């Protein structure tokens, strides 16, 4: 009865997800307050300070979430490509129209506040991807479809990296691999990609001569086990050649890199003498801050490492350091568990969708969140490369909070209508 007449916009909403979202956002706000704590401006709502601004971002994000819940769920499927195109245009325009801030060309400025369109490209791409892959006639295994899929992901990636030079914002698009895998991307591709990554790393770590010898002997051994006809011979030779040129290419690229780029790679590979006062500074300070937190932490607002600016970018990309230092292992583990729970919850919700569009969109949300979580926390504890991406719902910043909120609440909206239609 109620369903037919005027179903409440909160009807069928997944409250677990909303609750986790709220906890993360509020916890993030508290930690931003601790990270930039300033005795002269100790009021958490003081909008001259970052925590005051973040409060405004949170309030507006909640308003956005509310609006999304009001908007008809069919809006996204209907306008999927339009949304994608519009944000793509915005991203192309921003380097030319936006104002440069601290050398970054990815911002639109509105007075005191700034907006990064690249952040919103995530949900736009996700909608487009879901729309494309949910088409009944589409089989991802087809070469043509694979190509279009890669375009949907690759074009935003290249625009953000190429035009805006925002590595962190660009690399996130790699996360959609998970969606593609769920939707049928051949494991072989993933394996190939995985092997390629291994090869890149080995090329930097091991003398190339040894790698060449290793690849050639591997190919020779392979030939002993397969049918030795002309075709197989050709394939093995081609693989060997590609592998060898990848090794050589990696080394050459590395040799021609700028010193600071080389160092970044060295830091990650843990080789050479990394100067902890320069290149290794960020990661080392992050580890010190987190490590010094101990089991229970130093207490709220008692973290010396984050409060006294030893840790760089402690309110944005390195916000997890504040958690680690002030809340200790208990607090850090709690945040990780909360985030993982949210991601698993989204996957669970995705799987219960009748509509492929909703399912694919849900997987996209989970993938993006998971990628952010892995890289962001991984870099603070020295397990991932230093790539500047925010911790979802936690880090300071309006664009990222809005973007994650939109991303998540579109899915919550779609999920609340999972029983009604078959899209």
């Amino acid at each position, binding site marked *: 009865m109620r369903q037919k007449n005027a179903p409440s916009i909160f009807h069928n909403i997944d409250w677990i997800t909303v609750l986790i979202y709220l906890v993360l956002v509020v916890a993030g706000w508290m930690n931003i307050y601790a990270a930039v704590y300033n005795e002269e401006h100790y009021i958490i709502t003081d909008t001259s300070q970052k925590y005051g601004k973040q409060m405004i971002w949170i309030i507006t994000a909640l308003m956005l979430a509310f609006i999304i819940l009001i908007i008809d769920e069919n809006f996204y499927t209907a306008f999927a490509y339009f949304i994608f195109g519009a944000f793509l245009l915005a991203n192309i325009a921003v380097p030319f129209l936006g104002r440069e801030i601290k050398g970054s060309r990815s911002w639109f400025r509105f007075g005191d506040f700034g907006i990064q369109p690249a952040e919103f490209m995530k949900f736009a791409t996700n909608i487009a991807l879901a729309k494309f892959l949910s088409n009944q006639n589409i089989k991802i295994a087809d070469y043509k479809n694979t190509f279009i899929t890669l375009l949907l992901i690759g074009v935003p990636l290249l625009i953000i990296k190429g035009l805006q030079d925002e590595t962190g914002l660009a690399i996130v698009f790699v996360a959609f691999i*998970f969606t593609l*895998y*769920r*939707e*049928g991307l051949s494991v072989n591709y993933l394996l190939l990609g995985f092997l390629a990554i291994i090869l890149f790393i080995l090329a930097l770590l091991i003398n190339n001569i040894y790698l060449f010898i290793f690849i050639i002997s591997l190919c020779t051994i392979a030939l002993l086990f397969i049918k030795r006809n002309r075709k197989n011979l050709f394939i093995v030779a081609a693989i060997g050649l590609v592998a060898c040129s990848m090794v050589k290419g990696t080394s050459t690229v590395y040799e021609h890199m700028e010193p600071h780029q080389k160092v970044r790679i060295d830091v990650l590979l843990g080789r050479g003498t990394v100067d902890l006062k320069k290149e290794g500074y960020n990661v080392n300070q992050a*580890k*010190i*801050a*987190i*490590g*010094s*937190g*101990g*089991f229970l932490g130093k207490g709220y607002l*008692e973290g*010396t*490492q984050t*409060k*006294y*600016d*030893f840790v760089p970018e402690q309110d944005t990309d390195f916000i997890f350091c504040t958690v*680690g230092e002030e809340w*200790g*292992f208990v607090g*850090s*583990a709690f945040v*990780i*568990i909360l985030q*993982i729970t949210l*991601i*698993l919850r989204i*996957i669970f919700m995705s*799987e219960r969708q009748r509509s492929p569009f909703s399912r694919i969109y849900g*997987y996209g949300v*989970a993938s993006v969140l*998971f990628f952010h*979580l*892995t890289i962001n*926390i*991984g870099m603070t*504890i020295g*397990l991932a490369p230093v790539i500047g991406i925010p911790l979802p719902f936690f880090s300071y910043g309006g664009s990222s909070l809005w973007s994650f909120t939109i991303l998540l609440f579109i899915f919550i909206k779609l999920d609340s209508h999972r029983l009604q239609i078959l899209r």
Partner: protein
Amino acid sequence: MNQLSERKYIIAGVIILIGLIYIFRLFYIQVIDDSYKLDARNQAFRYNTEFPVRGYIYDRNNKLLVYNEAAYDLMVLPKKIKNLDTMDFCNLVGITKDVFIRKMKKAVQAPNSPRKQSIFEKQLSPKEYASLQERLYRFPGFYVQSRTLRKYPKRIAAHMLGYIGEASKETTEKDPYYNEGDYLGISGIEKTYEKALRGKKGMHIMMVDVHNREKGSYMNGLYDTMAIPGKPLTSTIDGDLQEYAELLMQNKIGSVVAIDPSTGEILSIVTSPTYDPNLFVGRARNKNYGLLSQDSIGKPLFNRSTMASYPPGSTFKLIMALIGLHEGVLTPNTRYPCARGYPPLGGRPKCHPHPSPQDLVGAIGTSCNSYFSFVFKSVIDDKKYHDTYKAYANWRDIATSFCLGTKTGSDLANELRGNVPSIKYYDKVFGKGSWKASTVISLGIGQAEMGITPLQNANLVAIIANKGWYYTPHIVKAIGGNPNDTLLDRFKVKHNTMITDTNIYNEVIKGMARAVEGGTAGALKIEGIPYGAKTGTAQNPHGKDHSVFVCFAPLENPKIAVGILIENAGFGSTWAGPIARLMMEKYLKGKITRPDLEKRMIEGDLIHKAKPKPVETKKRP
């Protein structure tokens, strides 16, 4: 489709796996690995040591002997200087750029080096220090070091007080309390009472930010410790007496020690030549130390009162008399001949002309070498021991009970044992069983291998004055105002010698009183205060004999016992006697009735080749 939906397990698995890896990693760096906590502490904390105020030292009348003055030095470690705004810095310190360049050059060149901290600007005033300290964080490589300078208003008792200096590397390794650069007592009572004087360092944990700016104290000072100031010491020294004695002893080489026999408190202890203790304060010390150590004749750095060993000479004749009486081989009426020497050995040891034979009192009065050689022989050959070795051992034991050949155990930093030769020693020199009383006869007159410090000498007099007992001589009577501090307990133990019969002492004291009434010290009477004395010489194989004088006053309930030795000064009554007499009068009466004597003593110069003017003496001591 069904097949593909199985992939959700793999995806969920990967997500859970990453979560677990991260949680384990966090557990490792946060809970298991402690190195990050240490790093954080080193980075964000600055441990400011609060140095306690070192205890002052007062004399027995609560007059200040040692106090402190704070000094601040601006230090530089050139290697650590970075991004220095020279003009800004010069303005802050108040110097010109030229001066800055000159000073920096000095800090970098030998003997300094860029890696070595050196003083950039010495002894800032507390006001300069305060304004500098606030802004100095902007100039890495520069910092202020505060140090305690000891000040000596009376410029006396340098050897006894000792001095403080920077802790050596060995010290800092042995005792974790000290860090390199800390100050501690190096000699004198600064060393003996270091623990009481130093107090306890305090520690303030300050938080600093990435720019090394202080951001307040950690946990509101929960883990801070306050410095506990050092305790003041009350010395047994009478500052006025000490000052007077040093004045009398100027330009003479030797030592005077005065003890209150009833308590063992050292009233004054003088080593001469001495120096102004203010010379050993702060940076001037090295220079002055070098200068003083070049004086090879006076050796002002040599603490003679406890570190020099002299033959006890005539003083020991008093002990010899006590032992003779105690062993029953001597009576006050025993008479021995003297033929300008000890007749049985052909006049050796030699003696000077005097009536012969004499009884005990006469022998003490004339300090007859022959007489006490006879006494020594009678003690060693005493039939009741049947054995020279046993008799000698007994003699030596008694001497040892008078604190001879053994440390007195005083609280003066370094003390020599002195020497009373052992049986083993003589067996080695002469062969086992090949020596007897006559072989070592000069022990009876306090010569031969015997050695005694001026402190032991004075203690000996105190024992005679007390008639058989003593308290360990000491220089501190109260710590932090508390005379019952446990550190002082050992000075409250009464030690008895092996001779306790007061009648025996009376005989010897009678002789000492005679010496003052009409004997060798007859010219040194003190109006209204009868006292006992013994003049003497200590033979010096290297030159003129040392002048020795021991005395105590008054005869009844003695208040002061003095032992004095002046090197190469000849007769005991020439220099040693008058000085001891003046000191006793000063201490007991507070005024001097013999300004002529005082003047002669003050002006007498025995170091700088000036001929000593002899005081009228009737007889050779």
